[in-house]
């Protein structure tokens, strides 16, 4: 008796859950309504089958439960019934499969007017490449990938010169124009997944995969990685912005091509020195950082990181959170750097400043810090030297009080909370591992031990610390 009742509860309960559930697909933002339709068909055919079988079991377990005088009927088989059920099932299966294959056919056949976009996955960020005016993407080779050529472009391929390179920033797409997405991976498997687009495809190293869709709704969408790609898998986020045609064209004009990037003159430290005068007021004449002005040490920091942060301030990705007092102070300070050349100059000048380890002010439990730092190693390096590959800045030998504050800001969402700031979001997710302020102090205290080690190494061998740490 109770079994029949419980089965009934399960069938009815599942139905009620389904109809009351607030959990369903997000509103679609691409042409793949067909996918939703196929899900819909499958869902209802399966739902009806579930309810029928469930209710049938309720009936049998209630009607034929053990009772006085009840005997089972001996009935080895019933050919007719079995055939009918087989045929009904087959019809149901065909009913699901036919629309499924129909839509799949559309999914794998790209319309000829679709424009190519290349998506490059790496641990743990997304980059993009658009063919320039010629409509072709230039040749690439994993062997060419380096700090200076993150996309592995072939510099001799004429078709690659006008390719637009968007490194670790948002991808913009024009609305209502089909795009063919070509996926490439530098290292491991990734999967480009925007829930609102429904479409999804793995990026596989050593080959190119593809899918296509047409964005149909203007908006900003979050990109997730849907294929396990290492310990940063859950932090591998990106942004896709679907624009109107005009907005898209305006955005495209601001993006640099491969040729422009290659032709960029190196920064001029002499010109940079003049611009640096403004910075020196807070960051110190030698870029050593000053606690009194809450300004961190700049000397010895990787140039790509400095560039990225200056741009983040300029674009309003950083220093906008209302609780980020010092960030908000910094934000207007980058405005005098009016163009890319000015930024490059000042970075070049900072590169000439002496890299003396910052004084140590933070104390904590080094052993606990060492074990907590385990999770940081993959990106920041076991010696805290940072890595361009993971876009993680150097932390060893930098101003430790600044690290403490930034870790706190990350953890509490004061920094890295801007929806377009995917790298900040990444650090935010990782920093949650440090449960309390004590943990932050411990880990920074451990980082301080690296800076002493680093200085010693530098004194004895005078080798480049980045070369040292990247090996691990």
């Amino acid at each position, binding site marked *: 008796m109770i079994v029949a009742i419980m089965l009934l509860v399960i069938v009815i309960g599942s139905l009620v859950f389904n109809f009351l559930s607030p959990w369903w697909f997000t509103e679609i933002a691409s042409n793949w309504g067909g996918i939703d339709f196929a899900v819909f068909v499958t869902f209802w055919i399966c739902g009806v089958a579930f309810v029928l079988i469930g209710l049938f079991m309720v009936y049998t377990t209630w009607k034929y439960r053990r009772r006085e005088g009840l005997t089972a009927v001996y009935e080895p088989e019933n050919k007719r019934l079995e055939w009918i059920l087989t045929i009904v099932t087959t019809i149901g299966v065909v009913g699901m499969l036919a629309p499924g294959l129909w839509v799949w056919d559309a999914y794998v056949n790209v319309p000829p007017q679709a424009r*190519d976009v290349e998506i490059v996955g790496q641990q743990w960020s997304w980059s993009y490449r658009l063919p320039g005016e010629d409509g072709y993407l230039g040749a690439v080779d994993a062997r060419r990938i380096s700090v200076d050529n993150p996309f592995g472009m072939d510099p001799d391929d004429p078709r690659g010169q006008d390719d637009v390179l968007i490194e670790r920033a948002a991808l913009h797409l024009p609305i209502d124009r089909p795009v063919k997405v*070509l996926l490439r991976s530098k290292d491991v498997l990734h999967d480009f997944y925007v829930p609102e687009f429904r479409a999804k495809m793995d990026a596989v190293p050593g*080959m*190119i995969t593809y899918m296509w869709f047409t964005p149909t709704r203007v908006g900003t969408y979050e990109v997730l990685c849907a294929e396990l790609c290492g310990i940063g898998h859950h932090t591998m986020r990106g942004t896709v912005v679907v624009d109107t045609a005009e907005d898209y064209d305006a955005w495209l004009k601001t993006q640099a091509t491969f040729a422009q990037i290659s032709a960029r003159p190196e920064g001029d430290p002499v010109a940079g020195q003049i611009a640096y005068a403004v910075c020196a007021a807070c960051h110190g004449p030698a870029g050593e950082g000053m606690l009194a002005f809450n300004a961190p040490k700049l000397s010895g920091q990787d140039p790509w990181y400095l560039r990225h942060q200056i741009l983040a301030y300029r674009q309003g990705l950083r220093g906008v959170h209302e609780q980020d007092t010092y960030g908000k102070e910094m934000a207007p300070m980058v405005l005098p750097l009016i163009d890319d050349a000015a930024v490059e100059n000042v970075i070049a000048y900072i590169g000439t400043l002496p890299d003396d380890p910052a004084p140590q002010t933070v104390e904590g439990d080094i052993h606990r810090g060492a074990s907590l730092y385990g999770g940081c190693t993959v990106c920041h390096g076991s010696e805290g030297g940072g890595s361009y590959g993971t876009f993680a800045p150097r932390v060893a030998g930098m101003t430790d009080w600044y690290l403490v504050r930034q870790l706190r800001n990350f953890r509490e969402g004061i920094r890295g909370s801007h929806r377009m700031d995917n790298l900040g979001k990444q650090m935010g997710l990782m920093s949650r591992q440090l449960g309390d302020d004590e943990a932050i102090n411990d880990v920074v205290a451990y980082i301080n031990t690296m800076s002493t080690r680093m200085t010693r190494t530098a004194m004895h061998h005078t080798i480049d610390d980045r070369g040292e740490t990247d090996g691990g």
Partner: protein
Amino acid sequence: MAETGQQHPISIYFWIWGLLFVFSAASYMVDYAGFQGYLRWSLIIIFMMLKAGFIVAIFMHMRWERVALITAIMLPPGALLVLVCLMAWESDYTWETRIVYLGAEIAPEPLPPPSHH
């Protein structure tokens, strides 16, 4: 009963032995003579299948086994044929993306426009 199990005139083994020598020599000659392309591949496969067939049928006595055993052993490798065919198709596809998009050296100049499957 075991004594009568798989006992066959010894001459047949000599015959097959000789035949295997001939087929091996023939497949070796395919290489020596430098045949190329489909002719080479089909000859290699023909001689290979002949050799494999004789080893299984005569040396391993499959020819004299009952049909139940023959079917039980010979049918399951059909799954492997599916695997091999699909993997060949798959490899060809992977190779194509490497040539078309990853600028492998064999790529002809100029490249054809990106093809859509």
